[in-house]
């Protein structure tokens, strides 16, 4: 993202997106979590 010009990249807290869903086993295998993140196009 920084390569294309974004700055001030910030990540929020992870969420257990696939917990209790049929895809949970694959998610656990690869350590998959959902994240909200934000960044800014420099002015």
């Amino acid at each position, binding site marked *: 993202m920084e390569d294309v010009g974004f700055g001030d990249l910030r990540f929020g807290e992870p*969420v257990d997106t696939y917990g*209790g869903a*049929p895809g949970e086993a694959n*998610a656990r*295998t690869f350590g998959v*979590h959902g994240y909200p993140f*934000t960044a800014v196009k420099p*002015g």
Partner: protein
Amino acid sequence: MSQSEDGLVEVDALRAAVQEHYAEVAHDPVGGDFHFHTGRAATERLGYPDELLEHLADACIEAFAGVANPFAWGLPRHGERVVDIGSGGGLDSMVAARAVGPDGFVVGVDMTPAMLERARRNARAAGIDNIEFREGLAEALPVEDGWADLVVSNGVLNLVPDKVAAYGEIIRALRPGGRIQIADVCVEVEVPRDARADIDLWKG
């Protein structure tokens, strides 16, 4: 035929598989066999506050298939112009449309016709008119240069074969000083080459 950035997946085949999968979500979000949560089970798990959704009918929420909450960074501001990449059934677009109010506008972009139809139907039913759903790809956004104050997306960019192109398009569509609020999945364990070539896992 073009390949994904790592050369392991043929781009058109991946897009066709993703379209087919999310058309199933659009047509039968409650009874379908998906490996992810949909609808209210997903919004509750991902931390969407009830007050964000209370103005939306169940039909607007059923096909939601996000992976986190892009509004964890705050709602769009009154009067802002917002692009929602991979707008699906339109839930995040409609949350944004309500937040920006009549002086703002939201463009939802999706490549799956069945999702576009569902989102347009949901917006009409909800009486939301500061919103438009357009067919398009993350790598070629149907939005003019510098139009958007904010770009949101939820669980979509991980499915895009050329992520550098997609982020380049987002930069193009944003005004200087504009921002992104994206929800997506991150992988903490290195994915083996054979798994990266498995389109079923890409869809996941």
